[in-house]
């Protein structure tokens, strides 16, 4: 069964460093998303991406964040100058069309120290 894969499963980084979280969405899906869940809090939408551009983003997704689809398979989230409060589980998801069920990866646990 096709699945969304995320690497790494756990990333530890020092405050102020840049991190890139990687995702391989399901191959025939057209919409890609990043969500995050801070420990003990709700899952929060960060950004959606369609047709090689951001279609929506939340207030959380400020200039510190960027997304890219560098080739036909990967979808990355870059966090510049990480802060302690960026520590969270980051989930990548994809869907075949907008406003349909999204399929999630296993997540990357980001720990900023």
């Amino acid at each position, binding site marked *: 069964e096709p699945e*969304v894969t*995320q690497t790494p499963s756990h990333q530890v980084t020092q405050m102020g460093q840049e991190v890139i979280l990687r995702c391989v969405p399901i191959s025939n899906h057209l*919409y890609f*998303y990043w*969500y995050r869940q801070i420990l003990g809090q*709700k*899952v*929060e*939408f960060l950004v*959606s991406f369609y047709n090689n551009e951001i*279609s*929506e983003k*939340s207030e959380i997704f400020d200039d510190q964040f960027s997304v890219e689809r560098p080739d036909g398979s990967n979808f990355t989230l870059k966090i510049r100058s990480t802060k302690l409060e960026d520590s969270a589980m980051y*989930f990548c*998801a994809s*869907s075949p069309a*907008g*406003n*349909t*069920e*999204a*399929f*999630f*990866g*296993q*997540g990357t646990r980001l720990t900023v120290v």
Partner: protein
Amino acid sequence: DQQVKQNSPSLSVQEGRISILNCDYTNSMFDYFLWYKKYPAEGPTFLISISSIKDKNEDGRFTVFLNKSAKHLSLHIVPSQPGDSAVYFCAASPTSNYQLIWGAGTKLIIKP
């Protein structure tokens, strides 16, 4: 931001009985609702969805009911099985965009 609320942090149900998980929403622009199941250290797994033009959708042991006037939806699992023990998230989306707004989750525990 409490647009989607799951007021029960946890629910314990006997194996074989019905599990009913509840979700309330405040935004009348939501027209697509989903339930996800999540095990520890895994990503959310899609279970079932319903659009606002329906009031019920059924898939095997899972049924979702939508009461638009009350802005309430529920997920029924019958019969409940031990593998159903997980955290269940309600999520909603308006047609104007595709982002999902999530509830806080309900931890379902199925007792043998």
